[in-house]
């Protein structure tokens, strides 16, 4: 029973990662796009956890949910906020 629940959760998380990545790419406002990208990274962290990779979860959460959005926010602040016209 617990396995079925875990696998259904895995499916939901992977679909949610697709939605978050799509929103991150088509969003014009860079700040919101970075937040969507962080959501997608969190979904990937859950995928890694269910796929039995605790080492990668430990390195992936600070890097992709913490530091990469911080860097992109710094870059956005120093350059332009809106993508495209």
């Amino acid at each position: 029973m617990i396995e079925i629940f875990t696998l259904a959760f895995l499916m939901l998380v992977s679909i949610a990662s697709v939605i978050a990545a799509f929103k991150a790419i088509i969003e014009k406002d860079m700040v919101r796009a970075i937040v969507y990208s962080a959501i997608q990274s969190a979904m990937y962290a859950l995928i890694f956890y269910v796929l039995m990779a605790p080492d990668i979860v430990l390195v992936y959460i600070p890097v992709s949910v913490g530091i990469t959005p911080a860097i992109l926010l710094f870059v956005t602040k120093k350059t332009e906020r809106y993508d495209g016209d």
Partner: protein
Amino acid sequence: MEFPIIVASVIVVSLYVNLGIALYGIFARPSLVKKLLAITILSDTANAFAVLVGYRWPRTGTPQPPVLMNTTNYNESIKYYVEHAVDPLPQALVLTAIVIGLAVTLFIAFIIIQYYRLHGTVDVRKTKALSR
């Protein structure tokens, strides 16, 4: 219990779709910052693929992370461990790839900031118009 084929297909298909979305971001979006964001999504997806290839579903019981947990009787616990643990090699490669990828992302971010200082924009189309 068998690993259901629908779960495997949903994960693989969603990873391929993410790959396509990231490629679209790299090719078609004009902002360099958005291109950098798309590159991070692309590398994350490639790493997730590597980890998925290393996953396994043993005949009996459930898979186990590659950490030797039961250490009372080494003879039996190592046998059980080899039969149930997932492949550690892709995880080791992905582990270093994530950290090195972050360092390279930092470097590209510096290059983008420098580009903005020199050209006054991060939009590649506007830069093309300027250089004419």
